């Protein structure tokens, strides 16, 4: 049976199709988020199905997750991104004990049991600090694309000290650093380090290795190294880190209709 997961995140919508019995991925897609969330999600699902050569009526179960999950009426049920992310990561990388997820407008710290179930979590969704939005702001100010920030940070020789984690004040701070002759590479590295420290502080005492890094920000090169440095442990970037939550939603969908093993996790 075909199952689908739709992750309606704050910056992008992701769809993953799986074979519910084998839990293998049959198709996936990502599209930028917009005002017409439901229409965008529906169109993306249709496109992914078409590419995979699967008919809409073959989809046995759909679970929506992410901030926009309640707006996805095509879904049979809605499950939070905490549960779905944990399910997706545990499927890809069994034995993971901590998931760090940095998305467009929030960041999360999930502590998992050896079974892969969530035992505790923390979220930052009130402040742009420690999120992809923060990196976007910095990239804009430095006149580069956000995807180039990581590579630039990798060339840094002396990462700048960014003391403010407020987007507005950090912007002022960056202007000051540029005026002092600080290189964009050092500023990029400083920003990555400050985000990593922020994430580490959010996790508090809940830092059990092995760590896995997910979310759109995990696609930024060297961000994993900055996190490893802050946490004092290696951090593994999940395969297709932007899609693990949608994958988890698809797996939960399969469990809910009883085609996949295990409890549905929600």
């Amino acid at each position, binding site marked *: 049976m075909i199952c689908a997961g739709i992750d309606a995140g704050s910056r992008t919508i992701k769809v993953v199709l799986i074979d519910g019995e084998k839990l293998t991925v049959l198709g996936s897609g990502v599209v930028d988020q917009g005002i017409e969330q439901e229409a965008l999600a529906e169109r993306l699902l249709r496109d992914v199905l078409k590419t995979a050569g699967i008919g809409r009526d073959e989809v046995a179960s759909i679970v929506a997750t992410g901030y926009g999950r309640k707006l996805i009426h095509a879904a049979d049920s809605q499950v939070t991104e905490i549960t779905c992310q944990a399910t997706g990561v545990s499927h890809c990388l069994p034995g993971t004990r901590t998931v760090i997820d940095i998305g467009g407008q929030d960041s999360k710290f999930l502590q998992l*049991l050896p079974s892969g179930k*969530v*035992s505790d*979590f923390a979220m930052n969704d*009130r402040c742009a600090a420690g999120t992809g939005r923060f990196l976007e702001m910095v990239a804009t100010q430095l006149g580069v694309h956000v995807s180039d920030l990581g590579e630039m940070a990798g060339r840094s020789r002396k990462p700048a000290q960014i003391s403010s984690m407020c987007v507005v004040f950090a912007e002022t701070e960056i202007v000051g650093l540029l005026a002092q002759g600080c290189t964009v590479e050092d500023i990029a590295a400083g920003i990555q380090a400050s985000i990593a420290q922020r994430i580490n502080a959010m996790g508090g005492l809940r830092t059990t290795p092995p760590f896995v890094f997910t979310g759109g920000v995990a696609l930024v090169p060297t961000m994993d190294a900055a996190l490893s440095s802050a946490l004092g442990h290696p951090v593994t970037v999940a395969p297709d880190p932007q899609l693990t939550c949608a994958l988890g939603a698809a797996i939960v969908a399969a469990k809910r209709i009883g085609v996949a093993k295990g409890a549905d996790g929600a």
Partner: protein
Amino acid sequence: MTDSPSRITLDEWDRRYEELSSSGLQEPDYGGCLRRHIGDGDTRLLRLRMDNSAASLRLWNFLLTEEDRLGKAREEGKTLVGTLKDLGTVPVMAYSMKNVVAFYPDGAWWIPCIMEHNAGLLEIADSLGIDDSFCPVRAMLGAFVSQAHFPIPDLLICSVGATCDDLSAIAQRLDAMGHAVHWWEIPHRRDPDPEEEAVRLPGTFRAPGSQVAFVQAELERVRRILEDHVGFALSEDDLAAGIQRANRVRTLLGRLREAVFTASPAPLPALETLIAEMLAIHFCSDQNECIAVLESLLAEVRQRVRAGVGPLADDATRVFWINPVADLRAMNMLEDAGGRVCGTEYLFSHALDLIPEEIAPMEALARSALADPMVGSPVDRAERICHDIERFGAEAVVVSSIPGASHCAMEGRIIGDVVRRRLALPVLEIEVPPIADSLEPTLRTRLEALVETVRSNRLR
């Protein structure tokens, strides 16, 4: 008993009120349909879901008519005492005196929520230099200026010392505006040194005898201020009788909490339980009626427990809730997500503990004041919370905070860490402003994720 307990909207309450009225509902003089409070500006009721029992109707009406009671007390020439930063000690003394009514001006922090900012109290506080970097209790300043919510009290008595910085600053601003404040000091509670006399306080805390004696002396000073104002002495017998009445309220609340938190399904929603608990602080300006309201609520709860019914699902996730919320809707949200409250610590656990009756009344009040969870270490508070979490069998914990409230910036984290270490339960930290509408999606996500986490592990 209500036939089918449920949480209903204000629209549904209109129909429910007609049903109750036509079936012979007996109400006190402050009774009536809940919708009438919208006319008074309490528009938040339009967004809440409330318990559908007659006992809860009475509770809500009692809460929302306190201003009327205070106005009436003023007309009758009673002495009005505003007790600031005092969650349950000086009010007991005041209510032991004839024709004295104590109330809690700091309680104005709820007005921006219940009136959805329409009263403009926070804007007035802004104009007085107390901006949103302060606790929402700054709404009290606005209420003193507008005089639209309570009469200006004849006496203002405020504890200071090991209390909230924000409240102290706001009360000083009030004093500077010409509302004279009588201060009494409460020290930071500490464990007795080995060579010191150790005094067991109500609840689980201890303090050195010297601290109890100090607080007793401070309260004696407050007693003289009260006596000087009303022109007669407060006798030991009257004070002992006042303590007994306060303990009657606390006993009722203890029974209510026990019944609500231990029964399954939950016989009363979190919102009504929260409001009932808040009555412990100052009796909503009428001690005798407060007792009647709680007796009625307890009777309803007991009947529901006996019948095995309640407004929430049997398998609702059992959540221990720490700290009161500024937006009452947060309590609805937990239940919408599939949770239920099975234990609380709203920062005034000492006002729920019985005041000792076997010792001299003033020493008993001093011990009660020192048992305030806010005047000691957050770790001490966390230990007591852990004890209650175990007692009520919670599966998860929510630590709520209010933006700008500065009682202890790290307290949520400290309590969370102690609970995780001791009990290995998931702990969710949330921040709830007076109107949390813009945060509703994120709050709901967190609460739903907490419920999912617990349920997933139940199945494990």
